[in-house]
């Protein structure tokens, strides 16, 4: 078992290039934690510091109660899946999977048994004697996973492992990873910039921006209760509409500067008397099959609406309504405030 605790972590490259400042984070044991954020937010750096591939400038990283600061990566009982897999091109698939075990002087019989087990689980037994460069992207991905799994680590660290795969394969491996996490019952830390990956796989999401934690919660809470404008606008396709509250027809809490609502909560007809109302011009309508996404403009603000019937095809000037219960309020500092 292993929880990961980051205390007061600072990381800077050179003197004036802080990437992460005073980061505090606890990654729960056996959780599937996704570090989510736009590129350059420091999520990969955090993962690499947990792995020990990079040293923090200051602060402490604990696995359970054990200080990892001076423990080299190979002794941290972790497995790392690289974005481009980093499979040794000079070795066969079997060589790749075995390499770490051989270096740890594990008996041959046990190595063979472990390789067998992992390969049958990931369905790569037939490629064992091939070189990685002769495999497809999805196969390489699974070999990289096998190389990590065969070590039976306490913690799996994954750095955007799906970003090199096509969309269909990504969906498939996403479900595979969820099943794998259940089966292995260990801690997964997963880095991605793709909110869909985070929402679909995580038990906990850590949303990061510019080296700071914006919100840490379960995917459902992240979606329903964004704690600030950044998380409101990062999660969801399309993201939450956040508009200046000056246009509001209803009373808003003291200090409220922005009002947010999810596109699927937008209605074309008034339901209650105190519904939030905004008048806008429909700019485009995208029929996506199960849903229709309507883009509308109100002054210089863009508002998205999601409707789940293909009959919904508004045109021209329209009033959009949102029930009060579905509104989120944010203050001038873009932090959430409550009624």
């Amino acid at each position: 078992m292993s929880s990961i605790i980051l205390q007061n972590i600072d990381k800077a490259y050179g003197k004036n290039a802080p990437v992460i400042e005073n980061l505090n984070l606890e990654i729960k044991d056996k959780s599937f934690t996704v570090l989510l954020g736009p590129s350059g937010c420091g999520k990969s750096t955090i993962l690499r510091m947990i792995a020990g591939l990079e040293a923090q400038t200051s602060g402490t990283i604990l696995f359970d109660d054990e200080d990892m600061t001076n423990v080299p990566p190979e002794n941290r009982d972790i497995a790392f899946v690289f974005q481009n897999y980093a499979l040794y091109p000079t070795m066969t698939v079997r060589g790749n999977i075995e390499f770490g075990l051989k270096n740890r002087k594990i008996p041959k019989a046990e190595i063979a048994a472990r390789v067998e087990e992992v390969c049958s689980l990931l369905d790569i037994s037939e490629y064992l004697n091939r070189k990685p460069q002769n495999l497809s992207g999805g196969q390489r991905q699974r070999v990289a996973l096998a190389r990590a799994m065969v070590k039976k680590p306490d913690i799996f660290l994954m750095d955007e492992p799906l970003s090199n795969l096509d969309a269909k394969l990504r969906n498939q491996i996403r479900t595979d990873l969820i099943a794998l996490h259940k089966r292995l019952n260990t801690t997964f830390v997963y880095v991605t910039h793709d909110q869909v990956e985070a929402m679909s796989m995580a038990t906990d999401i850590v949303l990061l921006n510019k080296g700071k934690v914006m919100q840490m919660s379960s995917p459902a809470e992240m979606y329903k209760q964004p704690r600030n404008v950044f998380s409101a606008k990062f999660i969801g396709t399309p993201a939450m509409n956040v508009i200046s509250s000056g246009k509001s027809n209803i009373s808003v809490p003291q200090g409220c500067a922005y009002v947010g609502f999810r596109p699927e909560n937008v209605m074309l007809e008034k339901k209650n008397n105190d519904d939030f109302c905004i008048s806008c011009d429909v700019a485009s309508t995208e029929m996506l099959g199960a849903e229709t996404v309507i883009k509308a403009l109100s002054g210089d603000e863009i508002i998205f609406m999601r409707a789940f019937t293909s009959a919904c095809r508004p045109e021209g000037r329209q009033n959009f309504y949102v029930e009060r219960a579905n509104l989120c309020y944010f203050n001038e500092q873009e932090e959430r405030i409550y009624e």
Partner: protein
Amino acid sequence: MNKTARLKPLQPGMRKAKPYLFILPSMLFFAVFAIYPLIYIIVLSFFDRSIIGDMTFVGFENFIKLFNNPEFGPIMKNTVVYMVIVVLLTTVFSMLVALLLQRPTRLNKIVQQIAFSPYVISTVSVVFVWMWMMDADYGLFNYIIGWFGLGEVNWLTDPNVTIFSIAIVSVWKSLGYNAIIIIAALNAIPKHYYEAAKLDNSSSVKTYFRITLPMISPTVFFLVLINIIGALKNFETIKLMTAGKFDTTTLVYFVYQNAREYFDFGYASSAGVILMVFIAIITLLYFKVLAKKVYYR
């Protein structure tokens, strides 16, 4: 008139000829300066040709004379010994130097440039500096050896040593160049392989032999080949340091001697043909034995 019609499509024959027309200038150049001399040497090796008199066809007589020459064996031995020493030392040392200087620190960059400089300096200057250092009576080498109470070595006149002395100069001259190319190959290896190896508990020696070396093997393979051919063709250092005396005549020097000192062009050409065939055999063997072990991405 239709604009596109102005560019008439080429006739089928012309279309086929077009690429050949484009490479014609360089092929002409190649033919005049590479293919013609090559063929001429082969032709010449079957003739008796000196600076005066007519060319007379003598068949394989030049070759027979060459193989019966008691010096031919030692000459081939010198050629091979010289090549082996140069290739071995250059490869091993340039790989070590490359490892030492690989990290792009400021100091390393300066040292890299210094290490590269012998390659730019003219061989004549290099040779004279080394000859001064190797001088038996007042050279630096014997002076240093003297500190340890060892006897003098006749670097440039002792037939047991001369070929090594010449080889050392050649190695020194090309070491930096080889090292720079290997450094480039080392730096082209993505860093994540090393990170993965570290996480796999691989020792640095093991990482070098299992990951680094296989990945730079195409470069090393190429350099070794270039060094083999270069060593077999070496002439300058021998001419300048010993002029072929004291057991330092290699095949190339033998060709030079017969052509330029004895004006026996037919005989020299036959030795030249032997050199060519020898290089071809070694290159083919090299590819046959080693090419499969080289890892290509």
